[in-house]
């Protein structure tokens, strides 16, 4: 018999604001400290949470803020921790994200490092405080163990779903 244990260990559903972001990151830090044995995995999971949640906080369009219910969860599926981030974006914004993610997807560790180097050496910090490195950093620390999809939920809005996996 092939059984799959699928346990939600951490979940959040709500609107993002500076206070929520801080509280979530404190809770994630505490979660990984208490539940993950390997120091490297603890650190990498925390890095992914920071980069993904800061991205959501920085890049959520003002017009979508009120209806933007952020979903964030950490699940243990068999021996793999799955971090899932879901946020609402305008469909037109998905094109830029697809371009970045397509450029990352399927790259080897060495290629990700080269992309990281090329990006950080030319990076300009945006007024929102981003450096264009968040998704590359996520790919770098997760050994590119990422999946994504865009679900249309209205005429011009869709859900951006980002999933990052860590094998224990």
């Amino acid at each position, binding site marked *: 018999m092939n059984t799959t244990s699928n346990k939600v260990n951490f979940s959040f559903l709500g609107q993002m604001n*500076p206070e929520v972001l801080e509280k979530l990151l404190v809770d994630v830090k505490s979660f990984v400290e208490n539940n993950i044995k390997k*120091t*490297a995995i603890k*650190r*990498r999971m*925390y*890095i992914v949470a*920071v*980069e993904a949640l*800061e991205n959501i906080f920085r890049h959520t369009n003002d017009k979508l803020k009120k209806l933007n219910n952020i979903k964030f969860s950490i699940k243990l599926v068999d021996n793999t921790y799955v971090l899932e981030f879901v946020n609402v974006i305008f469909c037109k914004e998905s094109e830029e994200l697809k371009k970045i993610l397509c450029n990352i997807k399927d790259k080897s560790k060495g290629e990700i*490092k080269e992309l*990281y*180097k090329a990006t*950080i*050496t030319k*990076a300009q*910090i945006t007024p929102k*405080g*981003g*450096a264009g*490195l*968040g998704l*590359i*950093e996520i790919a770098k*620390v997760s050994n590119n163990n990422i999946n994504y999809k865009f679900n249309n939920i209205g005429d011009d809005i869709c859900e951006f779903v980002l999933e990052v996996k860590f094998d224990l």
Partner: protein
Amino acid sequence: MSKIIIEKTDRTPELIIDTENGFFSMQYDSRPEDVRKFYYPILEKLKSIIEDIKKVGNFSYFKEKPFVFTFKLGYFNSSSAKFILDILNIVKSFKEAGVNVEVNWYYFEDEDDMKEAGEDFSEFCEVEFNYFIMEDEDDE
């Protein structure tokens, strides 16, 4: 000549710039709310030091004894990484101006990622680092 000390907060690192003794130190986490507001003054200060060194044209003190840059970082986000590289590129310009510089990168024994981050920065800024294992977070 001056000494600048910025105390650490939950989101920003402790920073020390001691021009007289040729010492720069950065430690703990870096995830500033306004990353530009936090790092721009530090970059400006380091640029002004190198400009002063070039103007005076006599920095034998730093030739004999190195200007030491110490990094004992915990977590830093990707925006902070960009500014850490900016700091290291200024370190490179110290070196190019003839200043004897030493970069000491500390990491915890079980955090190979942190050592690798140092190795990447060293490669990106083309400055050699020394690597040390931290005994505990207050290790000096």
